[in-house]
């Protein structure tokens, strides 16, 4: 059951680089306890938005409130309650999975690192991988380890950038099932940036459509599909990406 209070509140969020506006005055709020999709093509501003939410990137303008806290001023109050995973970030290859998870457990100040790692290893089927070097794992195994790192602190908010990119269909399905289960069992909120329409349709209760740094439309997947008079979310995505139909036209 989604909570009424927004977990994330973003107002006028903008990121300018020298001559490029990567995110252009984005405003949105995300309710707690649901999975929200951030959908858009390459360069739409998804990763930039997530980076600003995480505090890795300072916005040029606008405000971010997470759990009611001003993220720009009180980042360190918020960071212990969230976590993230991204294909642009890796864990040290020479360290074993157990060593990597132990280091991050200590960074997050977990009182019982060992039992938590064992618990996650069981959840994410990492038992046999714990003492293998992270660099020797397959893409699917690395994704599961990255998820384990992201779950260490039992985040109330999980920010995932393309969590199933470059995974085979079987592993991707496994990851989606895990995320569904986590959100259902813990009532955590997940913001998921993805190109994968079927993933977003399956997981997300709410979708933010981004294009050229702006949120151009928003709604539940089925709501968007019917509003645009299409059969799938992918067709909606293509309508927006190729400007075959504007959100205003769809609304009429």
């Amino acid at each position, binding site marked *: 059951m989604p909570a009424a209070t927004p977990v994330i509140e973003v107002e006028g969020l903008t990121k300018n*680089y020298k001559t490029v506006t990567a995110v252009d005055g984005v405003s949105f709020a995300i309710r707690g306890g649901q999975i929200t999709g951030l959908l858009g093509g390459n360069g739409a501003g998804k*990763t*930039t938005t997530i*980076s600003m939410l*995480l*505090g*890795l*990137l*300072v916005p040029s303008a606008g405000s971010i409130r997470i759990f009611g806290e001003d993220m720009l001023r009180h980042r*360190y*109050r918020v*960071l*212990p*309650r*969230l*976590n*993230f995973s*991204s294909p*642009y*970030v*890796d*864990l*040290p*290859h*020479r*360290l*074993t999975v157990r*060593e990597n998870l*132990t*280091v*991050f457990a*200590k*960074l*997050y*100040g*977990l*009182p019982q690192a060992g039992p*938590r790692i064992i618990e996650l290893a069981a959840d994410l089927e990492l038992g046999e991988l714990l003492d293998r*070097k992270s660099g020797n794992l397959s893409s699917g195994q690395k994704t599961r380890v990255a998820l384990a*790192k992201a779950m*260490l*602190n*039992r*985040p*109330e908010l999980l920010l995932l950038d393309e969590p199933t990119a470059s995974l085979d269909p079987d592993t991707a399905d496994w990851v989606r099932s895990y995320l569904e289960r986590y959100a259902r069992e*813990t*009532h*955590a909120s997940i913001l998921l940036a993805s190109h994968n329409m079927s993933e977003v349709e399956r997981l997300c209760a709410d979708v933010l459509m981004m294009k050229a740094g702006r949120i151009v439309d928003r709604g539940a997947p089925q709501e968007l599909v019917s509003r645009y008079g299409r059969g799938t979310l992918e067709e909606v995505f293509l309508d927006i990406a190729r400007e075959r139909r504007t959100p205003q036209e769809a609304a009429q």
Partner: protein
Amino acid sequence: MTAQAVSGFGFGDRLRRIGAILLRHAYLARSSWIRVFDLMYWPLLQMIIWGFINTFLATQSSWVLRAGGLFIGAVLLWDVLVRGQFGMTLSLLEEMWSRNFANLFVAPLRPVEYALALMSLSVVRSLVGVLPAAFIAIPLFAYSIFDLGLPLVAFYAILMMTGWAVGLLMCAMLIRFGLAAESFAWASIFLLAPICGVYYPVTTLPEWLQVIAWALPPTHVFEGMRALVIDGVFRGDLMVSAIAINLVYIAGSLAVFLFAFERARERGQLLQTGE
């Protein structure tokens, strides 16, 4: 649901996060003996070369003969400075090479805690690098740097502090310019070698360069070491001034490091720490 993680501002919380970074590098060293060997290799090689030069010169000059293993002592102390700086930059580079930077700073790790962790790592790396060379010099050249006694602790501390100051500047540059600045991060410390009188008295330098030399804390250490070895005098005044200069440099370098970190957050360089 309540988050398990703790983002305390207390001393213990800070120590725990610093400890996590140290643990990460301890695991790395344990998994890669070549990295540990690499720490010892250059100090050992330098000590052997200067040991033989010292042995040869002692047969040619009564001054060198009287000064005992002056050059061996100098090269070992010089390596404390070099390893001190490398210890910081190498630890940062390991995170950049492994694309782990964003993971660290999405965790509740403060930049200043990370800087303190890098400083602690530089102490460990300098000891691992220089101690084997110092011990091997005893049977090989009948020279023990430990004969310098308590002043050695002051020399070591001052050189480590300078290593931190330069290391913080180099880390700032790596955060700001990415791996494109890697070569400079390795080479920069050697700029000090001709100026701070490692192997010759500072009076050898032109007068205008001596002014610059005295602004460098290592100059005070090497002059202090020569005073101790040749004249048997411990120059406490040199040590006090070196510590004072170091404190100013460390404060300045830390400010530059924190500024570079904030600039990197503005430019999105924490997520993409490549070239």
